[in-house]
């Protein structure tokens, strides 16, 4: 079975919400749509207070290069355009919409029929991805139109679909594969043709045998889709590790996947691509896992972006347990802890993961015993313990020379550290300092 070679850990999988079918969460009375739904600059609002909007109407336009369009997830009246506190409590520009009815844009095909044929030229596909505000749904929310615009002089040879879902707890990708395998395969075919590559490889961790079987069954009807079962090892779904596992190639330090002829997309993204290209539906919905060991029920749900975390909780588990210690958006290894449940969800959110107080609390830090476990766990072959001491001593330049920027922040070092040192935190701080230093030098 294919896998990446170096480092990695095996956290408890906890895929306890595997069997919960995707349920639809009703729309709230007031929706707040952040303009920062993606990596890069925020979109510029193109509506004003009092404007009427429909579902799928453009409300935030991508004006910077690294940016993506934002569409209204609901129909109603724009109440105001002003910053709101996001999930981390930070103020972010947003459009507030008072919901009235559920009137969709006429261009959107809302029929349940599956549309297979796509005759669009590659350039038109990329243009449509941009128009529909598609971003990568694997966590980084990288604007898809930039990813699929292969730069001059470079050639894509592999399209790799990331369905590893190596993060503990998360099951949204699994549910999408189980319920929308055909749409996913159509989406993959569209992307494959847009890139002009012969084969697309779908990497799925072998702890999802049903998804592998389902995808294999459907992929048979399509040309050039190969399902690759992968070993269960974290971070199997990290971009560089996945490329290594599937193709054996290694993305060099500071380079992008396209430099070794690879393009990687998340499986959730391919479903969004299908909807955008074939159904004219912009990215206004998100599939989230609501899970946690202590929760009475487990859920996978379809929410419009802009629904608050509190609303999702209300419509799934009712209320958070009294012993809740931490709420995470994303998996336990790379997800972000959130503090403001009244914040609206955005395109990249993959889960509402509720952790118990005892589970959430980090054990106190003790002295480093130079055991080297962090080094052996690092999938990038780096030396986390060294970064830790360099960052503490403020030796930013040495940290840069020790390739701190190669770190993918997967968290394997902290996970395996017997001294409970916040290694990943320290490395992030070091990376920020190195970037600031490089920016100052320019």
């Amino acid at each position, binding site marked *: 079975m294919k896998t990446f070679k170096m480092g990695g850990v095996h956290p408890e999988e906890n895929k306890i919400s595997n069997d919960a079918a995707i349920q639809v969460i009703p729309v709230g009375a007031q929706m707040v749509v952040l303009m920062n739904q993606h990596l890069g600059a925020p979109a510029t609002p193109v509506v004003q207070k009092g404007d009427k909007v429909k579902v799928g109407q453009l409300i935030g336009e991508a004006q910077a290069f690294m940016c993506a369009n934002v569409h209204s997830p609901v129909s109603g009246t724009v109440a105001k355009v002003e910053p709101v*506190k996001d999930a*981390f409590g930070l103020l972010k520009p947003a459009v507030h919409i008072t919901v009235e009815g559920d009137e969709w844009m006429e261009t959107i095909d809302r029929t349940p029929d599956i549309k297979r044929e796509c005759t669009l030229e590659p350039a038109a596909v990329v243009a449509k991805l941009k128009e529909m505000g598609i971003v990568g749904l694997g966590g980084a929310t990288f604007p898809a139109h930039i990813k699929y615009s292969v730069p001059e002089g470079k050639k894509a040879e592999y399209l790799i679909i990331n369905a590893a879902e190596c993060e503990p707890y998360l099951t949204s990708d699994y549910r999408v594969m189980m319920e929308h395998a055909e749409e996913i395969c159509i989406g993959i075919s569209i992307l494959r043709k847009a890139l002009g590559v012969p084969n697309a490889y779908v990497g799925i961790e072998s702890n999802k045998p049903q998804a592998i079987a389902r995808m294999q069954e459907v992929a048979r009807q399509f040309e050039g889709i190969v399902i690759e079962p992968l070993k269960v090892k974290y971070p199997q779904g990290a971009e560089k590790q996945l490329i290594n596992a599937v193709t054996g190639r290694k993305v060099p330090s500071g380079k992008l996947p396209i430099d070794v002829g690879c393009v990687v997309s998340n499986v959730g993204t391919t479903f969004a691509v299908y909807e955008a290209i074939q159904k004219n539906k912009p990215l206004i919905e998100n599939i989230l896992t609501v899970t946690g060991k202590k929760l009475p029920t487990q859920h996978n749900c379809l929410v419009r972006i802009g629904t608050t975390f509190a609303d999702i909780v209300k419509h799934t588990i009712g209320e958070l347990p009294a012993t809740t210690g931490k709420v995470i958006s994303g998996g336990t290894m790379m997800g*972000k802890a959130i*503090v403001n449940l009244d914040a609206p969800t955005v395109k990249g959110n993959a889960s509402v993961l509720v952790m118990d107080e005892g589970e959430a609390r*980090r054990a106190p830090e003790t002295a480093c015993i130079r055991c080297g476990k962090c080094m052996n766990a690092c999938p990038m072959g780096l030396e986390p313990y060294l970064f830790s001491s360099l960052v503490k001593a403020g030796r930013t330049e040495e940290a840069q020379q020790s390739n701190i920027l190669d770190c993918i922040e997967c968290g394997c070092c902290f996970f395996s550290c017997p001294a409970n040192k916040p290694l990943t935190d320290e490395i992030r*701080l070091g990376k920020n300092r190195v970037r600031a230093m490089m920016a100052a030098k320019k």
Partner: protein
Amino acid sequence: MTQQILIAVLVLGAIGAFFAVVLYFVAQKFKVVEDPLIDEVADALPGANCGGCGKAGCRAFAEACVAQGNMDGLRCAPGGEPVATRIAELLGCTVEQGEPQVAVVRCNPSFCGEKRRANYDGLTSCAFAASVFVGESGCAFGCLGCGDCVAACQFDAIRMNPQTSTPEVDEAKCTACGACVKACPRRIIELRNKGRNNRRVYVSCVNKEKGAAARKTCDNACIGCSKCEKVCPVSAITIADSLSYIDFTKCIACRKCVTECPTQAIRDVNFPSPAKKAEPKPAPEALEAPKVEVPKAEPVAVPQAEPAKA
């Protein structure tokens, strides 16, 4: 026997003489001509290498002074006047001293344990905490409480108050080197003139949220109501982005703004008695305010640092 001793002495002597000659020529060849004045200036400096002057360290500062021949644009804040006079003497120039300054933390210690909105469990670093979330106080502008400023201070002049999770400056030790100002990711620390008798008035808040939102975040936030601006007799106060700022070069420390401020965001320090409230009827928030004042926790150097009492 004598012969052996003689040979040994001669051989060693010859080797010694040979290396002496070699050393002499090497020393001549690689001689570094350095102005001895640099050493003298460096000796006069405090030697803390705080970097407050913008140079890499005290030695670099001394080099810059000597290279320039005067002290224009070069200022050693920790050394203050005595050091400046001494260096001016050495360089044979005159020196103009600015007003003595001190670091001022512009955030009200308004969140004691029970007022926290989250529990930060990560790396003890403000810079890192700022990249993860808003801060335990829930204020996107306020103090994060991890003490990057404390770590940056070379003079042990800034300490964390464990009760308020906000730093406090020891005026006696603060040299206004500015290391804490640079270390703070929220930029809440400012160097302000010490003022006559160390008496200062400043807006202890940098929250730029609109009034209602700011009030919701913190009881002592500046809500940009501009009452202080109106009452100021010397127009030292400006309001921008719903935030008031007192220009310390204009302020005459009359404390009218202190009594006027509805949220007690303006603080006066080192005055003999707290300013009297002009209005006898305080706002309901002001009534609650004493809860968040922690006069006992103030360092000795700022005995009158508490906000105005109703």
